[in-house]
């Protein structure tokens, strides 16, 4: 799943020895997740490109300092996420506090949308509109939550890899991941609830309240009788 995290073919020794071909392969192996993370956090293609370039320039300069305490890839992602958040602070100083997370320290946001939309037919989840909505929902997350969610759930990092890549404790990763997922669940519930209503099957009511849902009457039936006089 996360081949970028576990790329066994790259040789750290060759990189340290200045093997340029190996460095080129290294760049290709890790560019994707780094670019996507920066793009999501900064929301700007030019800024994402700057982060991408700065990350590899710094990595190249500091190769000698890599001591193998963490994996090489998480070391690289750490440089990248530092760069991205540094640039974010410069671009949007007002977001600095947001970086720490959005909720009160000891309470999670109570779930508000209680609609069972899992029963929707599979095709409903595969539409372009549905995918675009999922995509857009990520952008509503606070940057600190977004970074954790992207690495863990989209790029497929483990909790530990995510923690190392973002210089966070595993506990912090788990807390942020839960918040991100709960917030996305709220958003998806709003969207798929509408899909359920569109289908007008009443499925939602049966699931949520244990009773048959009322199907909307068709007003045109009543209007039909009124002809021009």
């Amino acid at each position, binding site marked *: 799943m996360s081949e970028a995290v576990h790329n066994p073919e790259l040789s750290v020794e060759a990189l340290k020895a200045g093997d340029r071909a190996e460095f*080129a392969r290294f*760049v290709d192996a890790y560019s994707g997740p780094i670019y*996507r993370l920066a793009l999501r956090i900064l929301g700007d293609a030019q800024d994402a490109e700057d982060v*991408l370039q700065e990350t590899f320039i710094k990595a190249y300069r500091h190769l000698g300092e890599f001591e193998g305490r963490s994996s090489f890839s998480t070391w690289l992602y750490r440089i990248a996420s530092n760069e991205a958040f540094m640039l974010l602070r410069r671009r949007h100083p007002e977001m600095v506090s947001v970086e720490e997370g959005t909720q009160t320290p000891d309470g999670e946001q109570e779930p508000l949308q209680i609609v069972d939309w*899992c029963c929707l037919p599979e095709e409903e989840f595969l539409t372009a509109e549905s995918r675009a909505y999922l995509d857009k929902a990520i952008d509503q997350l606070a940057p600190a939550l977004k970074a954790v969610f992207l690495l863990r759930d*989209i790029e497929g990092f483990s909790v530990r890899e995510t923690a190392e890549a973002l210089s966070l404790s595993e506990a912090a990763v788990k807390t942020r991941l839960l918040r991100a*997922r709960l917030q996305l669940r709220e958003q998806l519930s709003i969207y798929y609830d509408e899909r359920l209503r569109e289908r007008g099957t009443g499925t939602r009511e049966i699931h*949520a309240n244990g009773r048959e849902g009322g199907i909307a009457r068709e007003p045109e039936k009543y209007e039909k009788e009124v002809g021009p006089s």
Partner: protein
Amino acid sequence: MSDHDREPVDHPLAGAAQASGTRVAIHPHDHQSCRHLLKSLSDYVDGTLDESLCVEIEKHMGECERCQIVIDTLRKTVELYRDMAPAPPVPEDVRARLFVRLDLDDFLVGK
């Protein structure tokens, strides 16, 4: 012990339970446990939660339709995102400029 079923429990569940004809008054639970379990839901859907807590959650789900729905939709949410391919790939022109910046332009062809 038999005092339990004396008073109706004021809980959002009560309506659903009545409608489906089930009595839940034997082990009345308040919102407290829903809130308490919320913290473990991420680990639960990832399958990394302690056995004992899993049992607690599953027991609660049997009694609380609200939490059942939250957990099902949370799991589905994670699944939908997991299935989403990480996109977009690095655009060709971005990659080209990166290689130039890193003095690697002679390796630009082979990808």
